[in-house]
């Protein structure tokens, strides 16, 4: 990456592919890959991948049109029956709503705060490097561990309330996990805390790629502060926005560990995400058919919204 034109138009995801990938197509095939080598290099992976990823995907779609139940001896074809019953399933509809709210919170919060943190920590020197490490640490901890740490903070007699008491802000004490709104906010805050450093690192990488001549030129022209951010920094970090948005969206819809540990879906289903509901329907009610139908809905949402996001944000990248 040298010129600004390149940064402007090349999405991060494409940059590595450039010269050799295309031109090599016209080249002759590798002479030492003889016919028999093909199966030996590709077969083991294919067997594993088809057997435990692709076949399950096909089967999930298949189960979703049956009444497959672990406890029942026979399985019957029910057509779109499961999908029809989902339309009237209050628990499912609530879980869909919960996941949608989570998706909005989790896409917006770590994205916005992550950009702020990246700008804040983009300084030179050892101390900034240490701070960047601190922000990245939660990313390597298990979601289960992070959830228990936060649970210790958020329970009624937890750390957050006792800190508020000590600071003389006792009136702000809350049952952080007791009311639906607080519980959703609390879970979103925990996820934000864990993914903030990751988003910041993605932003830092794209901030670093902004050529200094560009910043200097802007300075000479008297473009500083917020305007410089709006006109130069923001358009150039657009690919990073794309990446973070798609990853956070998928994370939000897969949300399981946090809600299982912190709230177990409560209070009153307020944090019962789609992913958690699939688990409950599949493994406590043993209703594989219905759970598979919900999983197909989940997959359809994740696949379509993330491809849509990529298309829309890519367009913004190039027109900005």
């Amino acid at each position, binding site marked *: 990456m040298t010129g600004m034109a390149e940064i402007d138009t090349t999405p*991060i*995801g494409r940059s*590595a*592919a450039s010269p050799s990938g295309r031109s*090599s*197509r016209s*080249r002759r*095939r*590798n002479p*030492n*890959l*003889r016919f028999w*080598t093909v199966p030996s*290099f*590709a077969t*083991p992976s294919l067997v*594993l*991948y088809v*057997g*435990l*990823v692709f076949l*399950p*995907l096909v089967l*999930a779609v298949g189960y979703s049109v049956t009444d497959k139940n672990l406890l029942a001896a026979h399985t019957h074809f029910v057509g779109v029956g499961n999908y029809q019953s989902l339309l009237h399933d209050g628990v499912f509809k609530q879980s869909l709503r919960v996941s949608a709210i989570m998706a909005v919170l989790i896409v917006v919060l770590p994205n916005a705060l992550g950009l702020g*943190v990246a700008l*804040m920590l983009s*300084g030179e020197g050892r101390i*900034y490097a240490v*701070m960047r490490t601190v*922000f990245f640490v*939660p990313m*390597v901890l*298990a979601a*289960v561990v992070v959830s*228990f740490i*936060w649970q*210790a*903070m958020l329970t009624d*007699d937890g*750390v957050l309330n006792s800190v508020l008491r000590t600071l003389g802000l006792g009136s702000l004490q809350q049952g952080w996990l007791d009311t639906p709104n607080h519980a959703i906010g609390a879970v979103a805050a925990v996820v934000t805390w864990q993914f*903030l450093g*990751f988003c910041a*690192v*993605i932003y830092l*990488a794209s901030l670093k790629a902004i050529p200094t001549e560009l910043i200097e030129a802007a300075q000479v022209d008297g473009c500083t502060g917020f305007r410089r951010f709006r006109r130069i920094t923001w358009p150039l970090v657009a690919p990073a926005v794309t990446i973070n948005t798609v*990853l956070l969206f*998928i994370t939000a819809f*897969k949300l*399981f560990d946090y809600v299982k*540990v912190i709230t177990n879906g409560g209070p009153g289903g307020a944090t019962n995400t789609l*992913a958690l509901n*699939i*688990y409950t329907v*599949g493994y406590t009610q043993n209703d*594989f058919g219905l*759970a*598979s139908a919900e999983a197909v809905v*989940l*997959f359809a949402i*994740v696949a379509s919204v993330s491809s849509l996001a990529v298309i829309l944000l890519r367009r913004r990248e190039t027109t900005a």
Partner: protein
Amino acid sequence: MIAPFWRSRLRLLFALAMTGIFAGPLYLALVNVFKPADSIRAHPLALPTDFTTKNVVDAAHLSLVQTGLKTSLIITTCTVLLMVPLAAMVAYYISRWDTKVARGLLLFFLLGLMLPPQIVLIPTTVILRHLHLMFTYWGVILNFAAYFLPFGVFVFSGFLRTISRELDEAGAIDGASSFKVFWRIIFPLMRPATASVVIVTALWTWNDFLAPLIILGAASGVTITTGIYIAIGTYSVNYGQEFGVMFLASLPILAFFLLLQRHFVSGLTGGATKG
């Protein structure tokens, strides 16, 4: 206008304050490991004046933690050892055998990158049951290796584009078989990519909760994540032990992270940003 010197000082102070607030929960998780249970409740934020290692020792004696650490170590190691060579080999085939089939194969593998685990897990349990692998280590290992394979293929096939084909051809002219060319010449050159794939796969496997919860089941052993969940969630160990357990569960991965920090960051973010 503030002088630049003071501006950079102010900025540093602000960054330090924000980092301090952010690190609050980490500080909390760390100091309380070394305090007796009752002083955790009374003064959760205080430094451990009555320093004790009792929590860690107690946690280390819990059978759930012992089995959990052992199981997680076995499953993580086997998943990495199985998945990495398979992914590297198929990526090599895809990038060198440059045909329509190979490009289709790459897309087929990349489809797996956007599958939520929930959609494949239910049928996977049915398949594993037929193979008599349900509730076994191998069931979990095969599931992880298959599910993380697309990530490996993605990173390796991207990296292979940067390795010149002349090397393969030179090897072939010298009469080396394609296995030899791959393992002796190409695979060693892929070390940066291998480091990323190993680290990220190990991290995801070690930290995963859903798959071991379902495939391994509580009866036939626990990984460290399901172990913590059962220990804290079900048996409600005391507060001190809870922090001890979380400390032991995170120590291996944290040590690994602090040693190989650069690789961790480039692996986790690189997997997301480039191929």
